[in-house]
């Protein structure tokens, strides 16, 4: 008989109790899940902030160079609308 075939004769110990096993999975899973959510939130928030900050910076540069705010974004527009 092939010695390798005898590997199947080694008895596997019983599976750990379901409750403790599942608790172990949750202990490992929950912190990683939290980290994933935090990272996703941080990336989403960063993207949102970058988009809005960039628009404001572009408007400020344009105002500095040309003396006028981009259409619909400047304080004059607001005053004009109010009037």
């Amino acid at each position: 008989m092939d010695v390798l075939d005898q590997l199947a004769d080694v008895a596997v110990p019983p599976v750990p109790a379901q409750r403790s096993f599942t608790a172990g999975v949750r202990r490992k899973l929950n912190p990683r899940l939290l980290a994933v959510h935090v990272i996703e939130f941080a990336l989403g928030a960063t993207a949102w902030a970058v988009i809005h900050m960039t628009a404001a910076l572009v408007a400020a540069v344009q105002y500095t160079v040309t003396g006028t705010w981009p259409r619909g974004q400047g304080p004059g527009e607001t005053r004009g609308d109010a009037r």
Partner: protein
Amino acid sequence: MQPLIGQSDPASPSDEDLAAQAAREGSDGIAFTMLMDRFRERVWRVCWRLMGTEHDAEDAAQEVFVRLFFERGKFAGRSRYSTWLHGVAIRTCLTLRRSRSRRRRRESPESGEAGLAETHADPQASPTAAVDAAHDARKLLEHLDEEDRALVLMRFAENHDYEELAEMFGTTSGALRMRISRIREKLVSKSGKMLGE
């Protein structure tokens, strides 16, 4: 309980249907919990075979389910779910064994190999000659690299056929036959015994 889509018998959905449902549901879904209950024993067997001690096997089996959770959307249905899951379990165990082996070598460089060789020694074992022979075979496997060792264990201890193994190891069944043949030759030269078919 959420309805399981595409299933004629909602009481016992197939593994593949559960996997599809698990991919759609959130972090506390019923489908993933059902998959976990269904495959706990099989994952445990694979992990125990590959890790060698109950403590390491339990740690690895839990890690497998964590990885399955994060990769639950990646099951494409090209193979049976159980085969795909075995592949994930094998890769997880190999990663853990490699990292433990590296850590062991860092902590005590001279005891690394000895530690590995003793991994499968079961104090309650050897009531029969067959079991002794099986333990000899397991010790012999410690001379192989991690992936070859895993392949031999899945083939001979878990009796998976070559087609399933090819899915699990991401190769072809022909390549695996050749590899098993080379492993046999290597083991023969290591043991000095005849392991032929």
